[in-house]
């Protein structure tokens, strides 16, 4: 990924602050039983806007960079592993949830699992490349 330019840095940092701020504020208010529905909606939108700004800045920098090389192959492999894990895991858990009484989970769980799976796969593949 190329270096982020000034506006992208601003978008990334600002987006991160909005995302964390919105999510933490909503969490704290929810824990205190003082989160109203309109307030929750506003804080959710703040967090979503921040998330979009952060991801958008990263994607713009990534698309500007030269994505040739073994990194592309490793990113594709990590993406395939992620899709496999999330689809198989998601379907398996949905059956256990429906028929075995496992607790319902928020949509944030598969998102976090997908992110973690991709990062672990990518790191492992990169480590393999360095070890050779």
């Amino acid at each position: 990924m190329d270096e982020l330019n000034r506006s992208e840095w601003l978008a990334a940092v600002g987006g991160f602050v909005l995302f964390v701020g919105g999510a933490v504020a909503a969490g704290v208010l929810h824990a205190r039983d003082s989160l109203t529905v309109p307030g929750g909606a506003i804080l959710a939108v703040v967090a979503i806007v921040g998330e979009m700004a952060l991801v958008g800045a990263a994607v713009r920098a990534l698309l500007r960079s030269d994505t040739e090389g073994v990194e592309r192959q490793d990113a594709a492999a990590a993406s395939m592993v992620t899709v496999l894990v999330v689809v198989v895991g998601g379907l398996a858990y949905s059956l256990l949830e429906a028929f075995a009484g496992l607790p319902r989970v928020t949509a944030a769980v598969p998102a976090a699992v997908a992110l973690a799976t991709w990062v672990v796969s990518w790191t492992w593949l990169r480590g393999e490349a360095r070890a050779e």
Partner: protein
Amino acid sequence: MIGNRLPVLRAERRWSQAELARRAHVSRQTIVSLENGRYEPTLKIAFRLASVFGLPVEGIFSPDPDDLGQVSHDPVAEAP
């Protein structure tokens, strides 16, 4: 696996992997992976390396015989 002469060509010029990576505008891991057969280059990288060494692509890379074995040169069979 597509073979390549990168280690030989690099040694002839006394270039390190990092130096070749810099000249071809790729990461050092890409050169390492190319040399040990973990990665087959895209056409873009193959042409970059050909330009760096001043050789045709075929002067650096050699095709996988098993892969070429799947190619058919027979004329299309006429339907009966």
